[in-house]
């Protein structure tokens, strides 16, 4: 098991390559009738190229990306503000905490029927769902992170002449960053999962909608391309926040 001890992060590509190889091999064995239900990886990649070259994938991907970015940035920002207020001021926490605790467990897609009636089917719908998906967990994590900051640091800062606002910006927020980033990291991936689901159910454009069209045409290769795009985007978003967190906090943690 020496190879296991020497396992480095760069080696993470090896299982992926093995998996793709096995996938290609089994698909080529033709155990399941035809290539329709189980296309080999090479066929999927060929389709990926066609979709990219024709602009279909790019167009749908951009639709999804814009929705995710707008919804996630707005939801995170609002979540940060409300979470900060809840963590910092007891009165805000006592007022909002019961509400947040009640609404937080509702899955983001649970809002879909209600929002379809309120907002109609259009761009606002997926953005609103992603907003909700990001808002509650990030507000919750931010409030928890702020309240978890040792009160003694605040006492020390007071004796050193810091005002309440200065204490918040220079002590509390930096120390709450690890908790805040946990929320951002998890929800950035979740935003992609939610947008795909919303597009599959209600929106005529985007990666999710492309998957639904492919399903009706029995194009497994296109469905798999969309799934790969989804997986890669979730991975990239989560990694982005993980590396940002590392950059901002690893020097003192």
């Amino acid at each position, binding site marked *: 098991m020496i190879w296991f001890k020497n396992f480095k992060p760069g080696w993470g590509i090896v299982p992926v390559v093995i998996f793709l190889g096995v996938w290609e091999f089994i698909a080529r064995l033709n155990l399941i009738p035809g290539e329709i239900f189980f296309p080999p990886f090479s066929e999927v990649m060929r389709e990926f190229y066609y979709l990219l070259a024709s602009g279909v994938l790019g167009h749908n991907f951009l639709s999804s990306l814009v929705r995710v970015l707008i919804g996630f940035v707005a939801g995170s920002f609002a979540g940060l503000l409300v979470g900060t207020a809840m963590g910092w001021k007891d009165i805000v926490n006592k007022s909002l905490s019961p509400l947040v605790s009640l609404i937080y467990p509702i899955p983001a897609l649970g809002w879909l029927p209600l929002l379809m009636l309120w907002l109609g089917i259009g761009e606002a719908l997926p953005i609103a769902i992603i907003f909700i998906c990001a808002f509650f967990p990030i507000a919750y994590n931010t409030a928890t992170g702020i309240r978890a900051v*040792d009160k*003694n*640091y605040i*006492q020390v800062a*007071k004796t050193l002449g810091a005002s309440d606002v200065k204490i918040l910006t220079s002590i509390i927020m930096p120390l709450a960053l690890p908790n805040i980033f946990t929320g951002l990291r998890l929800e950035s991936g979740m935003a992609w999962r939610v947008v795909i689901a919303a597009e599959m159910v209600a929106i005529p454009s985007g990666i999710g909608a492309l998957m639904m069209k492919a399903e009706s045409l029995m194009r497994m290769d296109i469905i798999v391309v969309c799934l790969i795009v989804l997986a890669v985007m979730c991975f990239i978003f989560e990694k982005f926040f993980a590396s940002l967190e590392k950059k901002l906090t690893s020097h003192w*943690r």
Partner: protein
Amino acid sequence: MPSVELRNICKHICRDVCLDIFDKEFLVLLGPNGAGKSTLLNVIAGLVDYEGSVFFDGEPVDSLPPSKREIGYLFQDLNLFPHLNVASNVAYSLRIQKWPWDAMEARVEELLHIMKIKHLSSRYPGHLSGGEKQRVALARALALAPQVLLLDEPLSSLDMQSAKYMRMELKQLQRQLGMTTVYVTHDMKEAREMADRIAVIESGRLEQVATPGEVFFSPMNKKVSDFIGAPNILDCTCCHSAGRGIAEVECGGLPIIVPDDGSKVRKIALLPRDIYISESKPPGPDVNRFKGIVSGIEVAPDMVRLEVEVGGNCLSVEMPHYIYQDMHLAVGKEVFLIFKLRNIKIYRGEESKKKNV
């Protein structure tokens, strides 16, 4: 530097506490855990609401927040900001006051130099030893040259040797900067080494405020005496040098050898735990060894306390249970007491003048 006056302070356990701390004085608040020492420190700092009044140089500061009281506060847990490096921790209060960059840099450098931690300036608190953290926290507290320095058991997390050096440095620094300083501790030894005066506090009440010698050799009441270890205190009537750095003093009929520095010994104190007891005559020269009669035995849960009559004095002696069980002690039995030279505490000052506040 201002004097600090506390008038009728009530907060948590503290009831009607009145205390005067003189200008440039090193006052130690001494008492057991939960006595209200840290509460008083927080009252002076303005970190808690309280009843009563606090005056700095005769001016009331009750309405001032901690940031306006010009205090430096060193907390027991130090609480260095973990996300800031040493230099940024020290510079924190200067940044708050918006010092110009050059002046701030120079001040930080000066403080790091004084505290001998210049080489640590870019390190983060997570990578510092206990003693280094101590110095950084002190440098941070001193950055704005506070009028009053408050120290809450700052050496409790250090090992004995480091704490000893830090005590000396702290005292030296306090003299050098001439700051009015209030130091909280439950350690009598620490208090004796550092204090100009000691304020003994017990259950939120000040029991005695006096010089270390007065507190130790003339405890005001049983609570103070018990807290400092209920020492046997003997008045010395006669003292003459025996040469070679030792002197012989006459205490209640007992000729006791003590270290000599040329000054008159007025009292000596022996903690009950520092007196050794033997059933047979101990070997060695007949110095600081006395014959006595056991006049009382009290078996307490944590140790055994004996009363021994020696030359007209009644001395308390403490011993652990396992030693007591190995001996065959009984009231009326003859025993030998041994006073170790370095365990004898000596009072050479003026006749104690108790000050009740």
